[in-house]
Structure formats: structure tokens, C-alpha cells
């Protein structure tokens, strides 16, 4: 057994049901020949590991902390490998991101009390919105800390759609496929998400002053 100590450590700290699943999975997979699996694993890794950053970035924005994001991505890759045989499309990144998203939601639901309560304060933000001029917004839109905080104040469905559109550069169609919503809904949700982000940004600017 040539196990690297570092890899083992990562596995042990990730308690996100991954170990239990691995055992179950191993039993099923072992009924096939080992060479077929090795080749399938190689083609899976070749197709999916290049999208690791995209997977991690999405998970990181959804679950909002480093360790959980790592667990989610690890679990998502295992799930993806399990259903890789059924993957016939050409867009591996969108396919993987769908699985990362679903896995993130599994974790978010499990920790519902912690995660799904948004820290967004409706009153402060709503009242200050009207006071901000476009010039103020333009001035602060490049403040990395303000933008990051404003993003993290958004609800999870807004965070995910903004990440997919503006960081992964996906089309309405691709986003619709990932979120399982029509493209019309993608458009309106994106518009609302950007408006809300602007609101949060403005709210934070006025609090800073």
C-alpha cells in the first residue's frame, strides 16, 4: 500500500460521509475487472480534474468556508465518477458543476440552522439604497473587501447564479441546465441578484462611513 501521508490526512479530516460512501462504492465497483476501472479512472481524471478550480470556487461561494468546500468537492468528484458512465455530453465543466452544486446543497441542508439563515439586514439596506448615487457605487465597485462581503450577504441562490454567470462565464442556457430552471428565470434571477448585490454594497458603504 503506497499511501501518501498527506492524502490520508485529507481523507480523515473530511468527515462528510465520504468514508462510508467509499466503502459502499468499492464493493460495487470490484465486481468489474481492475483494468477497465483503471482506464475509466484515467479518462475520468483527464476529463474532470482540469475543472477542479471551477468546482472549488463554486463550492466555496455556496458553503462559504474552506474546509466544507473541500469536503464538498471531494464528495462531488466521487459522485461524478460513480455516474461518469452515464455522462455523454460534451460540456464536462457544466456537468461537474451540477454535481458540485447538488452536493453543496446536501451539506447546506444538513447544517440548515447555521447556513440557510441569511445575515442580510433588510431594513438598513433598503433605507440606504436610495441615498447612493451611481457615482458612489462606481467608486466602490472595485473595493475587493466590500464586494466580497456584499456577495457573502446574498442568499445562496443569488450567490450561485452570480458565480456561474460572471466567474464561470456560462450562458443562460448552461446555467438553466445546471439549476434546472428555464432561461427566462435565469434572466430575471440574475437581474434580481445583481440588484441585491448593489443594495448590499450600498448598505455597507454607508455603514462604513
Amino acid at each position, binding site marked *: 500500500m503506497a499511501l501518501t501521508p498527506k492524502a490520508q490526512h485529507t481523507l480523515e479530516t473530511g468527515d462528510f460521509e465520504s468514508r462510508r460512501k467509499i466503502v459502499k462504492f468499492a464493493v460495487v465497483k470490484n465486481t468489474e475487472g481492475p483494468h477497465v476501472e483503471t482506464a475509466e479512472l484515467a479518462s475520468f481524471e483527464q476529463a474532470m480534474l482540469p475543472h477542479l478550480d471551477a468546482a472549488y470556487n463554486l463550492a466555496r461561494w455556496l458553503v462559504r468556508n474552506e474546509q466544507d468546500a473541500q469536503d464538498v468537492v471531494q464528495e462531488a468528484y466521487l459522485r461524478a465518477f460513480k455516474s461518469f458512465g452515464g455522462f455523454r455530453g460534451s460540456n464536462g465543466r457544466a456537468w461537474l458543476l451540477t454535481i458540485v452544486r447538488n452536493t453543496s446543497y446536501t451539506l447546506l441542508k444538513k447544517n440548515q440552522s447555521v447556513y440557510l439563515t441569511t445575515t442580510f439586514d433588510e431594513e438598513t439596506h433598503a433605507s440606504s439604497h436610495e441615498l447612493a448615487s451611481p457615482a458612489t457605487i462606481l467608486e466602490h465597485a472595485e473595493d475587493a473587501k466590500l*464586494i466580497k462581503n456584499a456577495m457573502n450577504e446574498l442568499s445562496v441562490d443569488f450567490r450561485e447564479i452570480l458565480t456561474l454567470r460572471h466567474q464561470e462565464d456560462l450562458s443562460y442556457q448552461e446555467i438553466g441546465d445546471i439549476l434546472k430552471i428555464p432561461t427566462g428565470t435565469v434572466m430575471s434571477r440574475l437581474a434580481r441578484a445583481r440588484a441585491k448585490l448593489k443594495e448590499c454594497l450600498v448598505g455597507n458603504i454607508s455603514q462604513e462611513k
Partner: protein
Amino acid sequence: MNCEEIRNLMDPYLDGELDPVISQRVEQHLRECAKCEGAYEVETAMAHAISQTAPYYKAPRDLRAGIQFSLRQAVGTTTSQAAEETAPLQVTPSQVTRRGATFAMPWNWLALAAAIILAAVIGATLLPRLRQPDAAQVLATQLIANHVRSLMADHLTDVASSDQHTVKPWLDMKLDFAAPVVDLAKDGFFLVGGRLDYLDNHAAAALVYQRRKHFINLFIWPTTAVDSKGPTVMAHQGYHLLRWSDSDFNYWAVSDVNIDDLESFKQLFEQQTARR
């Protein structure tokens, strides 16, 4: 169109989701109406803030190793052999040697041949992803591999410069052809630098452009008589490939930006090179 209609179209316009005709009408209105133009500027700033100012979290180093380890656990192998990125078609060597030890009897030759044929047939049916059907596919795979490698191995550029007048002489010096280098910064494609690459058995120039968070590798090499025709647009493993050529060069653009952006990149590049 009046201002209200324009405001309703502003989001899909910003996201590049309108058809060209309507898109042009919105564009024209924005040029003429200062109020809408101002509103659009704020919208663009928000989009830009998310794509450029908000952090893009890169996967930590250990995560990759962790995933590869748990995948190997899942298939029940932990051999280093499995860690090879691209495992070639392996025709069960243990079987072959075991039979090889007793091949004095003629029928064992048949058995050995049958075993090899069987293994080949199984391999061909069970591993369709490893088969490479034609030259275009092989080249596409190579192009994507080079693209991915350039992003992974901290070897995106040999000469890092946004100035075409720095990149071009450098490439000219290293290659036996003079690849065109153009500046597309005003259209949102920023030149990052140039690199020497090797593709399809010849040296190629690789120009690297950045579109928002995404990189485009543009591979250029001189046209020859035996160029593979193949498709001009391909989607493969989540990447888009776009091929075109002029009288002197073959161009292959590879990226994970959406296909529309890549198409407009191609058009802009062609316009600039045609002007020479």
C-alpha cells in the same frame, strides 16, 4: 424603443444574450440616452465587480491529491500505476505471460491469439473514450492538453507582455515563421504573452489572451498542403476549439470561455490580420 423597454432588455444585453438586431438597437439607444447609459454603466460595474474584483477561489494544493487518493480507494487500487494521467490500453499482461510459459503445444498459440484478440475486442468496446477516431480528434485532444498544461504548470507564457511589439519580435526570433500578434485589449481580450509550443509534429506559436477570468490559447503554425480539414468548431471536455486559416497560417483557439466569445475573438483577430 423607449427607455422602459430598454431597461427591460438591459440585463440580457449585458449578458450577451440578445440577438444581434435587438442588441444593436439597445446599443444605439444607449449612445443617445444619457440616463439609460448611466444606468447601464452601473450594471456593467456590478458585473465587472463580480468577475474581476470578487475573489475566485483556487482549489488548495492538497485537495487534488485527496481526490485522486479517494478515487483510487473507490476503484480498489492504490498502485502508483493507476496514478498515471493517461493509462494506455493495457492488455492484461499477466494472462499473456502465464500462457507464454506453456506455448510448446500448438493449440496454445491459438489460445494465446484468442486471448489477445478477446482482450483487444473487450478493450475496444469497453474503452470507447480512449479511442481516437480521426486526425482532427487527435489534434483536438493535443490542443486541449497543451492548453490545460499551460494553465497548470505555471508555464502560461515564455514572454509575458501585453505589448504586441514585445511578443512578436520574441516569437519571430525563436521560430522560423513570423506569426501575427494583434492587440485586442479594447474589445476585452487582453494579451498576456506568448509561448513556444509543439503540436502535430511541428513548432507552433501560442498566444495567450485573457477574457475576464479565462484564458484563450491561440496556436498558430504555417499552413501546409496536408492540413487536416475536419470541423471548424469543436466542443470537447468542456472546452471550445475554433479553427480557421488564412493564406499563411493555421489558427486554433482553445478556451473554456463560451463559444460566442470565442467566435468574436476569431472575428476580431481575422479583421486585424486582414488589415496587414
